[in-house]
Structure formats: structure tokens, C-alpha cells
């Protein structure tokens, strides 16, 4: 799979990686926000 990705042209792999980054950012952000809410909600 790694070899296949390396052969893709920059734009194609770029689109895949753009969505991968977007997914990761939203996961980290919403995960940390929800965690902070969870530890503080009973106060």
C-alpha cells in the first residue's frame, strides 16, 4: 500500500492526506473538548 501511495501523483495523494489531516484535527480537538467538559461538568 505504501508503494502504491508513493506512485500516486502529488495532487491525488494530497487530497487523501488533506482529508486525513482534517479528520485527525477534528478528532483531537473534539476529543479534548469533550474530555474537558466531562471532567468539569459536575462542578
Amino acid at each position: 500500500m505504501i508503494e502504491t501511495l508513493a506512485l500516486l501523483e502529488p495532487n491525488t495523494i494530497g487530497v487523501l492526506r488533506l482529508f486525513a489531516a482534517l479528520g485527525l484535527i477534528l478528532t483531537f480537538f473534539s476529543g479534548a473538548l469533550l474530555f474537558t467538559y466531562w471532567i468539569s461538568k459536575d462542578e
Partner: protein
Amino acid sequence: MPIGDLQIPIIGKNVVIASLVQSHILFAAFIIGAVLIAATSEYLGLVTKQPHYERFARNLARFVVLLFASGAALAITFVLALVTLFPVFFSYLQNIFFWVFLVEAFMFLGQIIIVYAWYNVWDKLAYRKSLHVVFGFIAGFFGLMAMTMIDAVASYMLTPAEAPVTDVARTFLNQTMVPLNMHRFVGNFSYAGFLIAGWGGWRYLRSTRQEDREYYDWMGHFGLIWGFGFLILQPVIGYGYLKGIRESSPDAFETIMLGEQAWHFNVLVILIAVMTIASTAYFVHKLRFALTPMPVLRKLAIGALGFTALFTLLNIIPSDADIAPQIGLVFLEGEGTKIPLGAMYPWKYIGLIGLMLVGFFILTLYLRATAGGFRWGQASRWSQYALMACAVTVVLTMIDMGSTRESARRVDHKPAGNGGGYLIYNCVTMGQKVVNEGCPAVVEENGEKINTINGQKVPEGE
């Protein structure tokens, strides 16, 4: 000892850095904006004696204290990832910005200490409120200074100063440092304001007690004034920032405005449309609940909503049918099919300036009504959905704009290496190689050229 070139399978190392930095920025920007908004609210509580200001400031301060852990953890993980994945580049950065990084570290430390102290002495300084408010503003100041330091690094990466890196002042105050810093300073307030408004909207819908409904209704309104008020300053500051990029790094400017990364701005104008229309619609709705009936003001606000929709629509129209070739969004003859209403001059200028003027107008009307007071706790469900839509949209806007700035250095994916492009524009490639040709940090001393990025002599003929 040789330094290994570590690769991350499938996603690549750029995605690792992007996701860690961008997540960190989403927290860091919120913390800076929220601390200053909370300190201002505490001060307003002191002056007006209205209890919701104090309740809001204290709750927000507690949330910031708790959120600090996530923001700081992401920052440290990012630095670790940068040292591991881009060790050569990081060593150059450390050489160029040693003092800047050092000051930033101490500002960060100062911010942590003061934010924690601010929250912890809330009751202890209950009778010395003015002093306590100062704690909040000092915490905000430290945060702003930390941001200023890292902005010097980020702006240098896109527009390196035309001076040796040993020229500390010119390296620090490179061509886009001030506009970037202003853009982020204003952005922090807008971003934090919209998130607070969204949170207020969500809590309002979940609240059953009338007292809580009134409080969260007010919180949504208060957050939106910050969010929208600072948002309408952004087009003119953003224009100044882009002008700086165009003058210093014209190829990078072409890439993000007309080239393959231009789709970022198509996404941006759609996001701005959502935020401005949702905010204006909220204002129109809220004017119904003004304590002093204001029918004329409300009619004017409805007119402003119409103009907002018109100007945002004008901004959304693309300049040609080649919208995002990366995902096949090309219509008719692509670049050959020009759309007259999508041209930058005059239509985008009209759209952006119009949006700002209408924004100022509606905000003035709304603040006028705010001075007379509102009946809280009676807002409709959809008005709260509008606030929540703004909160989601502002997060996407931050991600889109961060991605735009970092993609600007990837002009035609050249020079090759790790996806192509530059880490420091025209000086250090994505493959961490120093280039001499076109690098503004190359200087001539005693008849020989030196690249001050790595301190090496430039070979003859380069």
C-alpha cells in the same frame, strides 16, 4: 552522527505535523481570546454590578484552566514530532530564532502561572476586584506575547527577511510579521467569541430552569458580539497580510490566490457567508426582544440581512470554472471559462467592503438595542442553532486558513522532496535541503557569498 530521515507510512510526516499544530492552535487561540474576554467580562461585572458577567468570567476561567492541559500537551507533542521528523530544519530554526523561542517559552510559563493564580485567588481577592481583573489581563498579555513570538517564526517561513539571519530585528520583524500578528490578534477574539456563542446556544437548548435559560441566552448574545464584531475587521487585515505576501513571495501569493491552492479561498468565502448570514439573522431575531420596542431598527436590520446575503453571494462566485481540479471540480472549459461576476476587481472588492460596511451597520444597530436591554430566556430554537452553526463554521475557517498559509510555500510542488515546496520559502526545501539561489538570507562578505541559514559558503556559480 548522521540524522535519519524518518518517514511516516501512508499519511506522511506533513500530516502528522499539520494535525498536531492545527489542533494546538485551535486550543491556544481559544485560550488567548477567552482569557481576555473573561477578564473584560469580569471588569464589566465590576462596573455594572450585573451578576451574569461575573458568573460567565469565572466559569470561562475555570474552563480555560482545565483546557490548558490539552493545549499544552499538543504543543509539546508537536515540538517532539518536529524534532523527530524534521531535525535538520529544526536545528536551522533554533539557530535563527534562539532568542525568540526562549522568550516564547518564558511567556508560556508566565501565562500558565498567572492563569492558574487568577482562577485560584478568585475568592481571596473578592474585595480587591480591580487587582484581580489585572491578573486576568496580565495572563492575556503573556498569551499574546507567546503568540507574537511564534508569529515571527511562522511569518519568516513564508516571507524570510532580505537580510542575514544574524540581523535579529529584521528577521523578527520580517515583511509579514506585523500583519500576521494583527490577523491572529483579532482572530483570537472572533474565534473565542463564536465558540462561546455556540456553547451558550447549546446550553440554552438543554436548560430547563428559567434562570439558566436567561443566562445562556445572554451568553450566546455576548459571545456573538465578540465573534461578529471582530470578524468584520478581518477582511481588511487579511487583505494587508495578503498584500505583504504578494510583495515578498509573489509565487506563493499566486499559488494561494490563483493557483492550485486557490480553492481554500472558495471554501473560506462559503464559511464567511454562513457566519455572517447566521449572525445577522440572529441579530434580526433578537431585536424582537428589545425592552424598548424598536420597529424601525428591526426593519433596517432586515435590510442589512438582505445586503449581507447579496455581498456574500458575490464573494462566493468563482473567477473561472476551474474550481478544484484536485477533486475533479472543473466545469465547461475550466480556466478558459471566465465568470465575469467572479473577478477580483471590482466584484470581490465590492463584496468584501460591502460586507464590512453592512457588518458595522448591523452591529451598531444591535449595540444600540443592547444598551436598552433585552428580555432574556425567550429566544427561539433556530436562533440558537444559528449560534451553533457559527461555532462549527469558525473552527473550519481556522483550519482552512492555517492550511492556506502552510500550502502557500508549495509552489508547483517544487523543489522536489517530501511532497515538494519549501519549509523556509526559497531557502530550505521540504526535503530539509538548504538552497542558495533566490534565498534572501544569502549575503556577500569580503567578496564571497555566505548563506546565513546554515553559515556555509555558496559555491562559485550559484
